[in-house]
């Protein structure tokens, strides 16, 4: 029983990160029908913003070497602020990499490339400004809490448990907002058909901005939490999570919010099920599982098959 609990906790804690990440992809995909490849860079920025807001100093490399903000916020205040800062960056990305193409009626495929370009520029900008060295959010950020907690016979790091709880809370709030609020319903209407939504008086452009802002906020929060859990391994550290998030997005069903959550948790648990001695191959298991599911359900677990329009 303890072993099963341990396995579930291990899987859920990492799966929650994947789910948060994939939700950001999903929000943008649902309204624009394209994947925002700059999402990983925004995730990375969220981690750096958190680090700086808690009073972390920039290392010896980069143009901002030695920089330290004249404040040292507690982690729980720094995290949402970092999320907001990441949301602002996501809005800028929408403005420069997506909107100009949308305004000109360009093929959505091109937005893949512009978002990829924006992501590459952001990552390189991070490297230019703060160097490529690793940063870590001090373990004292969780002062007062034990480093690990025993739960139903399983041992789990406190930070992992917090990550799981915060992710669950954010997912719940987001789901309630999308299903229960007027603006959430407006977002769904835009996702269904932006032109019709516009004709019905829903400001499609504004809803797209909201989707980008929320997506950036989630990425920023996820980046800050992962930065607390493990180190920030340089400007490229969002790439691995980005790839996994893409897998989760596809597994859950493109554009499906519950699908992103389910996909994240399934991939996390699938990875945790890999015997420890073979953990080095857990990506193979995760992507192999994804491959098999897609062969059986190409639309993903909770995705819809859209009828072809003539």
């Amino acid at each position, binding site marked *: 029983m303890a072993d099963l609990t341990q396995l579930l906790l291990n899987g859920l804690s990492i799966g929650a990160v994947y789910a948060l990440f994939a939700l950001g992809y999903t929000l943008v995909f649902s309204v624009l029908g394209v994947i925002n490849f700059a999402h990983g860079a925004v995730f990375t920025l969220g981690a750096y913003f958190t680090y700086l807001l808690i009073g972390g100093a920039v290392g010896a490399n980069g143009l901002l070497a030695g920089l330290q903000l004249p404040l040292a916020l507690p982690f729980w205040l720094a995290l949402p602020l970092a999320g907001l800062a990441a949301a602002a960056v996501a809005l800028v990305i929408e403005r420069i990499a997506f909107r100009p193409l949308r305004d000109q009626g360009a093929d959505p495929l091109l937005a893949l490339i512009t978002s990829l370009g924006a992501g590459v520029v952001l990552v390189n900008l991070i490297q230019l400004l703060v160097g490529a060295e690793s940063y870590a959010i001090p*373990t004292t950020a969780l002062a007062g809490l034990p480093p690990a907690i025993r739960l139903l016979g399983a041992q789990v790091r406190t930070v992992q448990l917090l990550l799981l709880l915060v992710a669950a809370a954010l997912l719940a709030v987001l789901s309630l907002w999308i299903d229960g609020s007027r603006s959430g319903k407006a977002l769904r209407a835009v996702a269904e058909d932006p032109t019709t939504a516009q004709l019905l008086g829903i400001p499609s452009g504004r809803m797209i901005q909201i989707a980008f802002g929320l997506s950036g906020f989630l990425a920023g929060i996820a980046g800050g939490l992962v930065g607390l859990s493990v180190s920030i391994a*340089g400007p490229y550290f969002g790439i691995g999570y980005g790839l996994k998030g893409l897998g989760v997005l596809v597994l859950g069903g493109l554009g499906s919010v519950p699908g992103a959550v389910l996909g994240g948790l399934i991939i996390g648990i699938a*990875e945790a099920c890999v015997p420890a001695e073979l953990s080095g191959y857990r990506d193979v298991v995760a992507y192999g599982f994804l491959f098999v599911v897609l062969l059986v359900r190409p639309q993903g677990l909770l995705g819809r098959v859209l009828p072809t329009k003539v």
Partner: protein
Amino acid sequence: MRRRPMARRLSLLLTGLIAGGGLLSGCSRGDQSASGAVNLKEGVPVGAVLALSGNANVYGQDQRVGLNLALTAVNGSGGINGTPLRLAIEDSGSDDPGANAAMTLQINRGMLAIIGPTLSQQAFAADPIAQRRGVPVVAPSNTATGIPQIGHFISRVSAGSGVIAPLSIAKALQLNPGIRRAAVFYAQDDAYSTAETVVFQKALSDRGLKPITVQRTNLADSDFQSQISSTLALKPDLIVLSLQGVDGGNLVRQLRELGYRGTIVVGNGMNTPNIYPICQKYCDGLLIAQAYSPELATPANRAFVQAFSKAQAAGGKGTLIPPQLTAQAYTALQVVAEALQRLDKRKPLKGLSAAAARTALMDEILGGIYQTPLGEIRFTPEGEVVQKDFFVAQVRMNPGGRSGRFALLP
């Protein structure tokens, strides 16, 4: 209908990229750097290929400090018989393609010797390029088995893990003779880690400690919860890591957070103060064998430590004790500079072609005896370093857990 122009544009773009790539690769063929005379206009050219970005950047940064200190020392004492030494550092990233590209670029620029690459994994990819083109390589940090054996032009000042790694196991058992259950972790996608773990596992077996579990990780891993849970269930009292700084630092932190209190021995990949911000207070107590001691009482080491401390203090840095990787990088450039000085006296560089200078320089490198921060070193004909003194250190973190030191054990 709407998609046809797009498809045509995309195929044109792809054709253009392929054609452009072919042209570029054609441009890079042929070694024009070797046939001409050595270019001494801006000094005697020596290149370095360091991992300044990516996962291994923690090492490249230590190495860059060492190279710059050595460059200052060499040029401060007259350079290469009056001509300044010119050092060009290229970032290889932390992967094989990056190392290949940086190595090729440095060779094409006419560098007489190359210091680097940072990782053994990168060396196995990039050193054959230097070997084919007859350019001496002095590796400052490659410890995997087989590096000097890549070819005549490849040497190293970093002693192989076969020599160093067993020392820390011996020290761990000396400090705690009651150790009975050893667990091993290594990164399966990294040449250094896979080579070092073989040495560690043999050292353990030789002492009757067959590992109770061997956990394979990947360099890019950062979450080890599953593997740690599984390992701790086996109740180890010694854990041996062959990992790089970032993944290793994260694993140490998570091991301690999940309640492991036993001894941890780490390999050369974690031989850098840059692990301190990663595992923080949990770095305390790590055992590591080293090829360098800041306390070595030789004139060469005293001068190096003094220069390092002065530079760090001037830069407002906290670490005043040089790490091993910095000392080894300093040593690598010192070796190349001294070999160049001897070569230039025998055969003036300005009269030699780059190819002839490179070949003669390799012979000089292998034939010399050097008084370095690592102590006196020389090379076997194969290019393997011969070094006398090795040490075992224990990490001692300062209160607050943000900085610390490698304290040498008697």
